[in-house]
């Protein structure tokens, strides 16, 4: 059960936030915010190597008792963070990877839109639909 999905810019401000349970949004925001530190840590750890060699999927950033946080970073340091319910054991790593890949693809499509200025909040309906379907299907 994907609880939340956040896209953060290279400057670590959010471009897109979506969480399924309307309540507790703040909690998810906080969780994602703290997970950014982990993301940065992982990025810097591999910083020695070329960026190209860096794997985009960061994997489980850290688990809490309620949920797990997965991270994914693009080559342009745009970060995708996903919060998943811990009780959902059916969600395998591969599925998380595929979800991140879909996110990345959709994000790329957004970037292709000349009306989108990088760094803006993402308001695309299509993107919303995609994220919704993705999060819903998991649920």
């Amino acid at each position, binding site marked *: 059960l994907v609880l939340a999905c956040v896209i953060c810019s290279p400057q670590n401000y959010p471009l897109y936030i979506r969480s399924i349970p309307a309540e507790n949004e703040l909690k998810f925001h906080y969780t994602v915010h703290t997970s950014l530190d982990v993301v940065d840590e992982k990025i810097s750890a591999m910083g020695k190597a070329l960026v190209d060699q860096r794997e985009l999927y960061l994997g489980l950033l850290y688990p809490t008792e309620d949920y797990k946080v997965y991270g994914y970073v693009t080559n342009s340091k745009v970060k995708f963070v996903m919060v998943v319910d811990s009780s959902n054991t059916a969600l395998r790593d*591969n599925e998380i*990877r595929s979800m991140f890949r879909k996110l990345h*693809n959709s994000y790329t499509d957004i970037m292709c839109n000349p009306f989108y200025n990088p760094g803006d909040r993402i308001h695309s309906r299509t993107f919303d*639909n995609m994220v919704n379907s993705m999060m819903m299907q998991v649920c």
Partner: protein
Amino acid sequence: MEGLTLSEAEQRYYCDLFSYCDTESTKKVASNGRVLELFRAAQLPNDVVMQIMELCGATRLGYFGRSQFYIALKLVAVAQSGLPLRVESLNTVKDLPLPRFVVSKNEQESRHTAVYSSDADNPASYSGVIPPPPGRIQVKKGSVSHDAVQQRTSTDQQESTSPVVSPQQSPPTSPHTWRKHNRHPSGGNNERPLAGPGPFWAPFSEAQPGSSTSSDPIWSGHSPPPHQENWVSFADTPPTSALLAMHPASVQDQTTVRTVASATTTNEIRRQSSSYDDPWKITDEQRQYYVNQFKTIQPDLNGFIPGSAAKEFFTKSKLPILELSHIWELSDFDKDGALTLDEFCAAFHLVVARKNGYDLPEKLPESLMPKLIDLEDSTEVGEQTGEVGYSGSPAEAPPSKSPSMPSLNQTWPELNQSSEQWETFSERSSSSQTLTQFDSNIAPADPDTAIVHPVPIRMTPSKIHMQEMELKRTGSDHANPTSPLLVKPPDLPEENKISSSIKFTPGNTVNGYSSSDSYTSDAEQIGSTVTRQRSHSGTSPDNTAPPPPPPRPHPSHSRSSSLDLNRSFSVTPGQQQAGVVAYPPAVPPRPQPSQGAGPHVHRPVDAEGLIAHTSTSPQQIPEQPNFADFSQFEAFAVSGVNKEQEDEIETHSEVLQVEKPSDSTSSLRVAKADGRVEDKTPANVPTSAGKGTTPLAPPPKPIRRRLKSEDELRPEAEEHTQKTGVIAAVLASQPSIPRSVGKDKKAIQASIRRNKETNTVLARLNSELQQQLKDVLEERISLEVQLEQLRPFSHL
């Protein structure tokens, strides 16, 4: 009259309206047509209108003074908001939206044209053609421009429309920037984009009047006469209110403001509404217009408009960026950041629609989808002829895109269909149907043998085949070194020969196969093409196993690991040649002396055979026997398997020694051999006889002699393949050996013929087997590809 507090917007608005109605500039508006039409444009029930009029005191006064007018307008707003009409509500209701009045298109046009034309005359602009929004389109509120208003009022072209309405009334509630634009004086019009985009935007306002063809917010192009007024007016009228063009669709409102039109206009509207079927259909005129606009940006119709240029262009439409972004997402089908002609038309159409009040769809309508490929032409819906398939190459790209875009969903099945078609095509091309045909044909091709031998269907003794055979033989040359080894093993003398001969054919076809495999393949060749075919599809080492010739599944395995000697040996006399082909035509002589003895010598008696073979094989013993065999071809044909085996063995040894690609000269060899044999027949015969009689030692000797003689012949002789043919012939003729030397010529000739036939047969077999191999490799490659595709992504 109560005090009336108006907000500034209201103040302005009402002032404009009043001025509009105040045709006579008398500061009081009588209940003239304009006022009434204004109220009608408010889309209020008549009784409400009456109530309003009463409330505002006009009835008392008999005319609308400014204040009454203002009150009336305010009451109209109240009524439109759904609030009960109360005098008290005038001031108590806060944030009342401005009263809305349907703007006639003409007015918009006039405004619009006014914007762009320097002509101060608004005459024809207000043709009473009210843009009949196909049901939903809202008539745009005219921008408010005093000039326009004035002009409009003066001109009063609108036969029908609510002249009152449009020009003056800025879309009351529209939060659009357009409306704000509308409020600007005509000076603001100049801010508008150029006339280029101007006319571009004109369609927005003029969408309605027109197209009798489709009820879309149609931009009937400049041409259509009915709309010409709009266009014309657009061009002619002075820049009354530039805003008009933009605002026509107080889009966000979704207030379907019907143009209050005269009968004519309403009729037109109705007409257009009725013709409304597909809101997203692009008419030809619109299409043409879009194409022209496309050309202004990108002269090449097959080219792309880069995203930045498209962004500038569509930004001129004054749509909010969010909507433009959504439109882009809908229309950029292949997500490449650039617009093709079809995509551009779709985007343009969406912008137009949006300006006319249509909500943007979540998915790209079918009629706007760029044509994918010709396959989908039939599936396109509502596509105008003008929109003939722009090749869907960009659209085909989408498959690579994330299919999560809902707008692409419709195309996926089509693309999948096309891809499926392609796939099936490729699959068909790589199918092994030829093999099956081959098989079926082969079966009946060999009536002589109980076993279905791999008699190739094609009996084309072409040089190519011969060359192939030669190649195979050369390939087998590589394996030849091993053949002696094989020959040596006691149990495998015959097999060795077979294997060596076998090596000929599959030498080249068996790629990467072990030598043993080649043997097997050879054996199979000899055995049956059927078996071969099946075997090739399987693993190489099992060539013999998988497609067992009907009679002998794995008899060879008894002998050698992979050789199907039995099969090869079991070649019937008719097939002897085929079987023998594998062997150099060196064997025959041996069994000659005593056909029974020959075989005895060579085969059934292992010891003898072993010794003989071991001793002879490395040498060129078989050659001599071959000669003898040649003469015995005919006789041999009658002989049993043993003789064949003998011959094979002998030929095998010959093969070992002389491995030259052979062609159709095998017969020549045979001839030569026969000739020599004939020369030596007296000697050979006794030798062969000796061989036949003397189990072990004697046979080798005469064999050696013959071999030597044959050796002499060898250099002159030809390739292996021919030897094999000769061998076959020899084998076939073996039985005839004992007949008499005198018959050698006939035997030789017969053997020559047989060898030739065998050659051709084997050549065909070889080519077919190679084809099978190719097919199998293709299948393997396709399977590997499929496996790769099915394998889950293991990376990110």
